[in-house]
């Protein structure tokens, strides 16, 4: 009972700790004033001076994307010394949490970063795993770097003029995203203020066939594209009416332009364009939202639509728009809002892909908070409309692709491990048959190897310890917004989960929990080692009665976390510290504050004396996997006598065999001990009895069949004797 009390105390202290404000998480879900996103005087709401040392006066937000000028005052004279930008004004690149890390960035007039400050982040790993100071240290690496440099996460490669930054181990995705934010923001402003030369893209040369495709053809060949936003994507209740349904296309291409506008209007439009100016049309064929809004009335800028190409974004002033009177192409949908927009920049080229962006105002249904969300559709003129076809475009890999490429070797090894374990387990009958109660090595050699690899390589090496937080994230993703990128950013976890899901439904959760879970493996290995070094006499199992009660706790933990996650993912993630995984593998026992270390160490210490206490009673991940294990395809074998014989139950380390001899597959961790007995004629009582009977009767001992019994001896008719297989 003592240990139970210890358990309870640990749990209690954890909950207290998780809910108490943590000194470390300064910027975690920090409450920022609403004005920060909109107010012209950005620096009234954030301390711009922190990132632009020396500046005392700041301008209002200006430019597109927006930034602020910082001035120093010398002898009453104002001198421009640099620029301050709010990352979310420029890019909404999401980090690991799916939300952006809101960063205030300072850059001097020479284009060198002079200050970086995290205003708000939602990265759970920085809340509890890695101290926020790690990200601050990471950001310090940018100070003094020129914005035009090629800065990447990883090794410096001077031959490719790439400057490498040290990543934060365990938070790769966060820092890759952060690098993207820093470089995108910096270059966007540097281009505007002339530090970096504006991109000039080679202008498209069009193929003119003189044909006038109809609407369906234009849609098919990609000359007209659609952008649809559903109400739920902007936080409104689901409904039959779309939020907005837009069609757009590029008009300078003569065939496309004539097909859309008609000859006269096309000629007219082109006569009004100068070199390097591009016209595109937009129509709204459905939906409740307007793409024009009314922002352009006051400020003269259309604030709901823009065009992006590479790192450049192009917005439209009122003077860059004109009326689209109608669409000539047969089959065009009816529309109730329309415009022709002009991109006036040589940085834009129709030869290359670009995106039409609709900026929606997303309302968080839970909090009512408003945020801007971009919806875009890529557009690239068909090769048939371009002289020489489409030019080759090297697109920078998405962050998740970069990760997969960078860790290809480990990913290969890890996948091999998963396959190997599955294959070994698939041939478990062959192994258990070779093993006996006294010599379980044919099974254990594989299992122990899996444990060691899992602890060392998977756990400490790859930090690929699956966690209940992923299950929670999935629940939310399935309910609200599924993005593959989010899951692909961690390839090991991604592969691991494929393995877990498949094996859970094929064999039950025990293969993962019993063979590959790094913490589970460590826990049971400690128990085994404990026994081997002479602590066996201190080792114990909970009495059946208590075990059967306590095993339900983990389900409670799981559903508790799930319920909390619907109110606050952040709190759920904090409470998920009931898993000692982060402390054990991701951060290290000695890198965390003492309550965490004590908790993890306590659990591991306890594991020496009782088998897998955490797995049996607390693990919410195990609980979440236990439930689908009910529907596993292949169970472990039982024979009739198992109902009354409880020999296996005695040896079952996971206490998964009840008094009726049934295996609870939700609790079973696939140690295969019972299966070894199952075919061991010296250990399985029914077999032992039969062996003794046959030995006494002088009957031959036939091998054990697939059903777990000696293959029966049957008299064979003489005629067929010659044909009977030799057993």
């Amino acid at each position, binding site marked *: 009972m003592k240990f139970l009390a210890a358990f309870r105390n640990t749990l209690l202290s954890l909950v207290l700790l998780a809910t108490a404000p943590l000194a470390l998480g300064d910027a975690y879900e920090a409450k920022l004033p609403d004005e920060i996103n909109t107010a012209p005087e950005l620096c009234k709401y954030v301390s711009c001076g922190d990132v632009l040392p020396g500046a005392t006066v700041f301008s209002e937000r200006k430019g597109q994307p927006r930034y602020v000028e910082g001035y120093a005052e010398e002898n009453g004279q104002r001198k421009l010394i640099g620029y301050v930008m709010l990352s979310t004004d420029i890019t909404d690149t999401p980090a690991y949490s799916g939300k952006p890390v809101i960063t205030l960035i300072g850059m001097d007039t020479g284009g060198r970063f002079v200050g970086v400050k995290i205003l708000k982040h939602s990265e759970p790993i920085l809340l509890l795993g890695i101290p926020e100071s790690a990200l601050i240290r990471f950001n310090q690496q940018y100070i003094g770097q020129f914005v035009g440099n090629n800065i990447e996460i990883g090794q410096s490669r001077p031959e490719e003029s790439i400057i490498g930054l040290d990543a934060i181990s365990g938070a790769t995705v966060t820092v890759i995203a952060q690098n993207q934010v820093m470089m995108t923001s910096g270059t966007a402003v540097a281009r505007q203020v002339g530090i970096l030369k504006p991109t000039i893209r080679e202008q498209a040369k069009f193929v003119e066939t003189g044909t006038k495709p109809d609407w369906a053809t234009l849609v098919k060949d990609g000359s007209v594209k659609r952008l649809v936003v559903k109400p739920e994507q902007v936080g409104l209740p689901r409904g039959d009416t779309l939020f907005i349904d837009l069609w757009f296309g590029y008009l300078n291409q003569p065939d496309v332009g004539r097909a859309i506008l008609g000859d*006269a*209007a096309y000629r*007219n439009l082109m006569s*009004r364009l100068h070199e390097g100016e591009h016209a595109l049309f937009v129509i709204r064929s459905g939906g409740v939202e307007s793409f024009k809004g009314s922002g352009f*009335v*006051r*400020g*003269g800028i259309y604030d709901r639509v823009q065009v992006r190409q590479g790192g450049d974004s192009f917005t439209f*002033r*009122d*003077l860059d728009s*004109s*009326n689209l*009177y109608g669409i000539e192409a047969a089959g065009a949908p009816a529309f*109730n*809002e329309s415009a022709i927009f002009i991109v006036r920049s040589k940085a834009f080229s129709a030869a290359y892909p670009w995106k039409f962006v609709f900026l929606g105002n997303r309302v968080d249904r839970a909090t009512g908070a408003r945020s801007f969300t971009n919806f875009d559709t890529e557009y690239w003129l068909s090769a048939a409309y371009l002289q020489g076809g489409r030019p080759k475009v090297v697109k920078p890999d998405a962050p998740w692709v970069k990760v997969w490429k960078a860790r290809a070797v480990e990913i290969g090894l890890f996948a091999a491990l998963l396959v190997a374990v599955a294959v070994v387990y698939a041939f478990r009958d062959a192994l258990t048959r070779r093993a006996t109660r006294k010599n379980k090595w044919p099974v254990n050699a594989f299992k122990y190897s899996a444990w060691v690899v899992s602890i060392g390589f998977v756990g400490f090496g790859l930090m690929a310890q699956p966690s209940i937080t992923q299950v929670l994230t999935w629940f939310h993703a399935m309910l609200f917004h599924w993005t593959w990128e989010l899951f692909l950013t961690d390839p090991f976890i991604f592969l691991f989960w494929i393995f877990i899901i498949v094996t859970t439904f094929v064999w039950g959760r025990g293969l993962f929990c019993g063979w590959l879970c790094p913490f589970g493996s460590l826990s049971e290995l400690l128990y085994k080692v404990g026994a081997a070094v002479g602590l066996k006499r201190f080792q114990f199992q909970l009495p059946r009665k208590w075990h059967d009660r306590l095993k339900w706790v983990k389900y409670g933990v799981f559903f508790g976390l799930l319920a909390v996650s619907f109110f606050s993912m952040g709190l759920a993630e904090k409470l998920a510290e009931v898993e000692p995984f982060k402390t054990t593998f991701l951060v290290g026992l000695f890198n965390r504050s003492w309550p965490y270390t004590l908790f993890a160490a306590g659990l591991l210490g306890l594991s020496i004396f009782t088998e897998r206490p955490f797995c049996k009673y607390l693990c919410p991940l195990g609980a979440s996997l236990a439930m689908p294990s009910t529907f596993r395809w292949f169970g472990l074998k039982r024979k009739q006598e198992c109902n009354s014989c409880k020999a296996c139950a005695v040896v079952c380390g996971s206490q998964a065999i009840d008094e009726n001899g049934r295996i609870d597959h939700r609790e079973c961790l696939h140690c295969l001990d019972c299966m070894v007995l199952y075919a061991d004629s010296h250990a399985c009582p029914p077999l032992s009895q039969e062996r003794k009977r046959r030995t006494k009767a002088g009957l031959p001992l036939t091998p054990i069949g697939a059903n777990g019994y000696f293959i029966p001896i049957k008299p064979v008719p003489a005629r067929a004797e010659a044909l009977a297989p030799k057993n």
Partner: protein
Amino acid sequence: MSQDHSKPLDAQPDPSRRKFLNTAAFAGLAGAGLSVGLSACKQEEAAAPAAAPAPAPAAPAAQAVSNGTHLKPGELDTYYGLWSGGHTGDFRVLGLPSGREIHRVPCFVPDALTGWGITNESKKIMGTKPDGSLRYTVGDSHHTHASYKDGNYDGRYAWINDKINSRIARIRLDYLICDKITELPNVQGFHGIFPDKRDPVDPAINYTTRVFCGSEFQIPLPNAGKDIDDPSKYRSMFTCVDAETMDVRWQVLIDGNCDLAASSFDGKLAATNQYNTESGVTYPDMMSAERDACLFFNIARIEQAVKDGKFKTYGDSKVPVVDGTREANKDPKTALIAVVSVPKNPHGVNASPDGKYFICSGKLSPTATVIDLSKVLEWFEGNLESPDKAIVAEVEIGLGPLHTAFDGRGNAYTTLFLDSQVVKWNVEKAIKFQAGDNTAQYVVDRLDVQYQPGHINASQSETMAADGKWLAVGCKFSKDRYLPVGPLHPENEQLVDISGDKMVLIADHPVRPEPHDFIIFKRELLNPKPIYTLEDFPLAVKDPKDSGVFRDGKKVTVKLSSQAPAFSLPEFRLKVGDEVTLILTNLDKVEDLTHGFAIPKYNVNFIVNPQETASVSFKADKPGVFWCYCTHFCHALHLEMRSRMIVEA
């Protein structure tokens, strides 16, 4: 009409044109023994093929919705309409089919909204007396027509006449503003106006380079006190103005008068109808002849004559005047003019979109006269015995025909002032009927309109791209068609759908009196610019820092700029007696962000559109504080947008 015969005779009927053409007066005139074709009226009933009038006007009202003239919020009209303003002296832009008035362009008369006639820039265009005050403040604009290229409108210019002071104004269609006004010499009652459509000689010039102007009233030449009591010496002229420079190129001295004008699509001919070939001074004199005329001008020959020096000048005018009298143009091979006779006091001459015919309306004769232009050219070549042989049809269409529009499908639509109708008739069938085919049913349809229609025009009617979609009818009387507003009634511009066989009356649109003529064309043909270009104004205050009060003795220049919600100077100081020129540039670049500038007690108000510069000059003759303020709503702080003009004693 028969009952009108019993009415007592008017010994002296009201000679005003409107009342004159009123049915009652018309009958009265007939009774007075002045034959104005009443006999023809009876004939018409017998001979003119009857077509059933359109259903009562109340019925199509339901169709107005289905025809989509009432636009939904945010929907745009499909046609532009350019309207004359009559004696409001302005030029108007309507959207059709909605009939909504979108814009007014001040030209001949001052406009309080824009400061037209207040700003130095507008005064320069309008013309001033030596003391700087406006030369004229009244105008009467009747006809507006736009520049052509390849037989369709090119969106460069429109021109409009001022009948009172014989001025022609040009409207830039890129900014929809008046940029030049020219006063025609040697004429009075400048009425008809029409740009040419291409050059008669140079095929490369396939666009408008000239504007033809007809003058109604005959006057002594020069009109400087000589011959005032000898109407036989009164003369009228046909004038050609250069489309670009707006200088008068030449004039033609003619017999009789001019009324409306037309030009041919090949550029070779211009014409004016003449209702006073008699050169009468009173209307009975003007009606004395049974036939008046349509007078054709051979443009190439006139310009050759000018080039050859065969011209005179009159008075102070330097404009070359060639002799276009009948006496001097008897030989067709050298004639500058051709006179085609048309029944009694014709009104309106309109070119058909196929380029073949000019059609003159009879007015006092119930007929329309179709003149074949190729035959007129034949006469000029000496190959036609008489100009009248160019008349290919002269058919009865109804009482009081005035103006004709076309649908591009061979049909003409003529307003019948006295019948209060529009008659749709087929030109080729009328020609067949004239040729003797009595079975040719040239009248296709008749439609009652409310009431007494004057001008008529159809969408794209005056171009080779006539599309036969909409017909607008300018009814001179609205009577009971609108909520009563006292004795002065609006005009009733009615919209008719002519896309089918039958004309369908779609809508009534009130307009402030009193537009005359108008043109309707597709919206794609016009591309107005949303804001001005700063550099186009030599006086522009390009930077707020350039603002200030600049003094040169008594002459003071105040430079200001505006950017919502402030003027660049919160105050400026003057001294009594200063001769002030105030320059204001609107530096706002946002579309539709116009500012106003009013100076209380100094009778100053004008607007500056985005990137526009305007100036005013005045004498600081009243000491005190004068709050100059923005009169054109611009910003949430519009009321706070002020500047103090402090005039020190």
